[in-house]
Every structure is written in structure tokens, then in C-alpha cells.
């Protein structure tokens, strides 16, 4: 490319957000008094000055072509004075400063097939990661899982209400670039077999000490003879961290890679403190394109939550109230050896009490 390039700048940081705030936001910055939910994808924020901003939220696959971004811009130009924002969960928000602008905006969005919703006690967009679309580390696909699950649950995005918000997430490997470890219901790609060591490549690609140190279970030790490393197979729990550090230890295994489901996490401080997600299903097969086993398990969990939870209870709060033994009963999920913690804080999760509910 022999073209002439513009003058390059460095360390300028992002543009100041101020340049991008719609006038009603800029004028009422820090002055918002309250808000009201007006529908599954519509809310209004009212300022101390009396000004109001209506927000319409629509779903996005997150993976967007520039063509689609231009479509979004077109709508924003037409209805929102050329401003638009994304949420922290990758939805798109269109804002207008006058009630009269709401209906035309919503109509156009509907006409163009956008899914309006995600506000209130619903399922919002699914935080997720790269998967087979871009990552070398992925034990499953992320976008595909999201699509498969949300095609099933979309009503909870755009219409039906739930006891409280239910935050879904997907991470395609245990690096957990999605918010899996603190989500109401989440999927994570997992391996079931140890990495294979490509001894001839280790020398060139990997630093032995950091490879050894990368293993959470100390399964890896140097193999001086081979100028490589060896793995104590029975100590490996397939986390793939060694592969992150040393590309010569591939762990992907199409037959045995799959998806685990974790539940009961949250990050908000409302009522109960933030909670970690806990293992609900240790492994389900990778069955693209629709992962029916995973979708089915997620639905079971969600249905049990809907049936059992009280208003405003998050999934984790509901489970804490009824007890995990009961969770397995009401979801019909099987309790296995894999559910029992044997990692860092294992002891804290064992039942050091004589109280539990009968479930069999």
C-alpha cells in the first residue's frame, strides 16, 4: 500500500466523552432526579431541571458489520440528532429528548426488525467472548451459544418479566473473558482431557519455568532430557493455562471439549453482597450449531427459578434461600463428583453442619 498516510499521533487517549454527549445529556449531566420504566425497552430519566430523556434499548449480536453500524447511525441521525450509545452489556441505546420522538423512533426500529427490550426484570444481552470466531483458546463457540440460547429465551428480552434481572454470560474457555464467574446463569467452554506436549516445539516457543509455574495444580515439571516439560496426567484438570503460556501444549479435543453451566452469581450489592457463580452442570457436549443439551439445561434452570423465586430475588439469592440440595432437586440436574470442590477453598464449601433438606 503505497498510499500516503495521515500524520500519526500517539498517546492521545480516547476522545473526551464530552464531544459525544447528546445535548440533553450534556445539559443535565449529574442532575438526573429519577427514572421510570415505561416498557420492556423504554425508560425515561427526568432531570432536576425538568428535562427528560427517553431511552430505547435494542439488542445487538455484538459482532457487528460496519454496514450494520451505518444502519444504526442512520436511525440515530434521523431520530436522535446523530447520537447513540452502547450499554455495558452491548445493547444499543437510542435517546430522544421529547416524548413526541419516542413513537416514531420505536416504530422505525420495529419496522427494521430490531428487538426492543432488555430493561427491567428481564434477560438482557448476553456478555460473551470470541469463541471460534477469533480465539485460539476457545473450547466452544461463544456467539453461537448466545444465539442458540437467546433464540429460545428472547421473549424474556422483549416482553415477559422475571422475578429480577437474569444476567447470562458465555466464556469460550476458563480464562473467562465474559463475566461468567459472577453471572446468574452462564456457560463456559471446558476441556476434559490434558494438553498434548509437542516436545520439539517446546524448546522454541516456550519458556520452561513460566510453563511449569502456570499450572494451578503443579502437574507440570521440567523434562530436562527432552528440553521440554512433562505432565503428571492424574493431576491435570484441563484448565489450559499452560497452553496460554506455551503454544506447544495444545489442549483442544473435539470429542471431549464441551460446555459447563454455572449459576447463582451476581455483582450488584442490592440486598445480598456480590456472589460467585457455582457449578450447576460440569459438562455438556459441544453440539453446534444449536447446542440443544445446553439450551435445555439453561431452560430448566430458568424455569425452576421462575417457578420458585420471590420478586426481586436474583438466581443466587433464590438458591441460597432454598439451599443447593433443593436446587438440584427442582431442576432435576444430576449431582456429581465434579460438583464437589477440591480446589483452593474446597473446605469452605463442604457442609460443615448437620442441617440440610431431604431430597430423596
Amino acid at each position, binding site marked *: 500500500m503505497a498510499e500516503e498516510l495521515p500524520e500519526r499521533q500517539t498517546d492521545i*487517549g480516547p476522545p473526551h*466523552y464530552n*464531544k459525544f454527549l447528546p445535548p440533553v445529556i450534556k445539559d443535565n449531566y449529574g442532575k438526573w432526579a429519577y427514572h421510570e420504566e415505561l416498557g420492556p425497552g423504554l425508560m425515561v430519566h427526568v432531570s432536576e431541571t425538568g428535562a427528560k430523556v427517553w431511552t430505547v434499548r435494542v439488542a445487538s449480536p455484538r459482532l457487528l458489520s460496519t454496514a450494520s453500524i451505518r444502519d444504526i447511525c442512520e436511525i440515530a441521525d434521523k431520530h436522535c440528532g446523530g*447520537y447513540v450509545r452502547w450499554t455495558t452489556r452491548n445493547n444499543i441505546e437510542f435517546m430522544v429528548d421529547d416524548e413526541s420522538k419516542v413513537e416514531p423512533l420505536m416504530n422505525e426500529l420495529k419496522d427494521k426488525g430490531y428487538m426492543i427490550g432488555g430493561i427491567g426484570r428481564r434477560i438482557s444481552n448476553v456478555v460473551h467472548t470470541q469463541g471460534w470466531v477469533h480465539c485460539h*483458546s476457545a473450547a466452544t463457540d461463544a456467539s453461537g451459544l448466545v444465539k442458540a440460547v437467546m433464540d429460545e429465551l428472547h421473549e424474556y428480552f422483549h416482553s415477559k418479566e422475571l422475578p429480577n434481572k437474569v444476567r447470562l454470560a458465555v466464556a469460550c474457555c476458563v*480464562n473467562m473473558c465474559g463475566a461468567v464467574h459472577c453471572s446468574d446463569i452462564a456457560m463456559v467452554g471446558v476441556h476434559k482431557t490434558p494438553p498434548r506436549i509437542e516436545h520439539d516445539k517446546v524448546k522454541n516457543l516456550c519458556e520452561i519455568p513460566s510453563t511449569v509455574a502456570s499450572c494451578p495444580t503443579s502437574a507440570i515439571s521440567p523434562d530436562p532430557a527432552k528440553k521440554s516439560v512433562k505432565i503428571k496426567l492424574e493431576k491435570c484438570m484441563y484448565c489450559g493455562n499452560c497452553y496460554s503460556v506455551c503454544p506447544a501444549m495444545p489442549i483442544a479435543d473435539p470429542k471431549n471439549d464441551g460446555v459447563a453451566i454455572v449459576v447463582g452469581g451476581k455483582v450488584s450489592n*442490592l440486598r445480598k453482597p456480590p456472589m460467585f457463580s457455582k457449578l450447576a452442570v460440569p459438562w455438556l457436549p459441544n453440539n453446534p*450449531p444449536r447446542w440443544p443439551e445446553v439450551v435445555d439445561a439453561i431452560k430448566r434452570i430458568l424455569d425452576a427459578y421462575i417457578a420458585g423465586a420471590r420478586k426481586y430475588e436474583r438466581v443466587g439469592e433464590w438458591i441460597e434461600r432454598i439451599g443447593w440440595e433443593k436446587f438440584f432437586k427442582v431442576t432435576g440436574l444430576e449431582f456429581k463428583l465434579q460438583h464437589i470442590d477440591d480446589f483452593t477453598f474446597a473446605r469452605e464449601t463442604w457442609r460443615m453442619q448437620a442441617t440440610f433438606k431431604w431430597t430423596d
Partner: protein
Amino acid sequence: MALKHETPLLDELEKGAFPSFVKEIKRAAETAENPDFAQDLLGQLELSYKEKVTHWKHGGIVGVRGYGAGVIGRYSDVPDRFPGVAHFHTIRVNMPAGFFYTTEALKTICDIWDKYGSGLTNMHGSTGDIILLGTKTENLEAAFAHLSSRGWDLGGSGSAVRTPSCCVGPARCEWACYDTLEATYQTTMRFQDELHRPMFPYKFKFKFAGCPVDCIASIARADMSVIGTWKGNIQINQDEVRNYASSGLDIQKEVVDLCPTECMTWDGNELKINDEDCNRCMHCLARMPKALKPGQERGATILLGSKAPIVTGALMSWVIVPFMKMEPPYEEFFELVERIWEFWDEHGKNRERIGELIERMGFPVFLREVGLEPHPAMVKEPRRDPFYFWTEEDIEK
């Protein structure tokens, strides 16, 4: 342009109600300026769907001149079959705080990306960046020159500060206890060098939430989580409380009974809060935004250490400063950050996050070395075993 590869499995994911990423890739394959990227992405992805395995290789080191961060190198392991994605690097562009855009700015980015990349993006990455998804090595410099000349810079990657991000905060939320957007912007600017040139033991993330609702998930996903809070009494508008009651809110059941500290009472006419016992969980405010507002002395709680489960299990951030005013020029905050980094620099091992380091060395050691006073807000409960340390000055000789 017609599609190059058959994708029967992916085609399934064009069906169904929820927006389809497959449609997006196809759209780029059909309409992008450089359609080969998306065309072959479809092909390779279909192969992954068939074989149930990723076809990306472990990343190599690629980037733009003078930067050590901001580009994720990516190569196909089947480049012969899918030459369009033989290289498929990602450029992380630092988004504006709060994720607000003018369409003009967006279109500029699209223009650049259409020219120098696949025309595919993630809006946004999990850390918050604009992800420009897929280009080849030789396009990187040009893309960067265009981006930076239009006012955009790269985000973080590698063992560096990662792109700080925040909730919508004072821009559109009545509960923001400090200016999350400004704090994010200033932090990003202050640490440009640390963001672009990896020199830490591992990554370091900042996330700014305006209140304990934590709409940016900072407590789970940021090495440093700054969460707005207040001192003093929740501001109550009793008339509005009664309005909520009369418009159907069961205040006893949906508010008072769910207060975790049991510090509220409601007699059908007046709502009382014993603020001394309130832990600012936000539940009552969320139920009655028109009637309740945070107290007037506002600032933030600083928490440290969250991360994903590798290596010793996931961490959430924990309180290290119960209350700090978060106001420009943020000197107290930046100085604290720098003291923490010094501690990390001195003691941290390669690939050891700050939270893991503190866990290894001991939270008390950290507090002493960084110069923070112990405070009961730092713990859920005191230790249970009697195995603690004393220093020379505690000992009688």
C-alpha cells in the same frame, strides 16, 4: 458479492428471533470493501462448527510502532484453505468513556475499518474497547495512522493497564455518586504510557461504577474497582414515598422486608431509615427512585483485586479504602494507584495479578507497605485462626 463457502451449520444460526452474528458476517462477506476476510471467516468458522474445534493459532507478536499493546495477533491454522484469514488481527480502539458516540465519529471508524480491515467489529469487547475484528499485519500501521489522526487511540492488551471503563453514571443516572466518565477519562489519560507499553507483571484493569449497583461489573472484573457511595442519610421525600405506596408498591414487602440490614420501618405513612445501620446496598433506592436519593457527602469506595479463575480461583475486589472523594485532579487516587504498582513491581511474579500477589504475601503486609490503615470495613469478618504476625515494635524486649 456471492458467498464463497457453503455454511449449512452456520446458516441454521441465521434463523430464530435473536439478532444473528452469522448475518453480520455474511453481510460483510457480501458488501465489505475487503470481503475476503469475512468470506473466509465464514468458511473457517463453518469448519470449526463441523469439527468442534478452533482453527486459530496461538497469537504472535504484532502491533504498531512504539506501542506494545492494542493489537491481538491472530493466524489461521488452515491458511491454505482460508487465505483471507491467514492473518486476522484485532485492533482494540479505546472507546469513549460511557460508550456515547456521534454517528459522525462512528462512521469515521467504519470508513477506516472498511478500508483497512474486515468490516467486522465487536461493539464492545468485554473490557470495553471497540474491537476491530480482523486485519492483516501490513494494514496495521495504516489503520492506526488514520485512527489516531482522527482522534482515536488504541486500547490495552498484554501486561499493561487495560482500557478503563465505566457505567453511564452522571450522564444518565440519578444515583451516580461521583463522575465516572471523567474519572475514567482522566485515569486513561494519566496512564497512557502504562496502557500502551506493557511493563507490569500482568494486566491491570480499572472499572468505575457510580454506585453499589455496579452496572459495569467492576467488583468482578477490575483489578481496581471504584464504586460510588455516600456518607450521611439517604434523602427521603415522604410525599413521593406515599405516592409509590398509593400507586401499588407494597413498601413493607418489596422494600422494608428486603433491606438486608433491617434498618427501615414503614408505618403506612412515613418511611424511616436508621442510616447508621444502612450499608448502602441500593435496594430501597432502586425500588423508589423518585422518593429516595443517596446521601449528600459523596465519594467512592476503592476495592482491589478481582479477576477470572485462573490460577487459584476467581477473585472479587475487596475494600482497601472505605471512602475517597473522587474529584479532579484525582491526585489522592493516582498516588494510591502508583503506590500499589510499586508494591506489585517489587514483589509480583510474572503473570501474577495484584489480587493474587496480595493473597500470596498477605493483605496486612500489603496495607503496611502501601501505607493504608487497617479498617474494619476491609473485612467481612476477622480471621478465625490465631496465626498472625507482630513487628519489632510490638514486642517487649
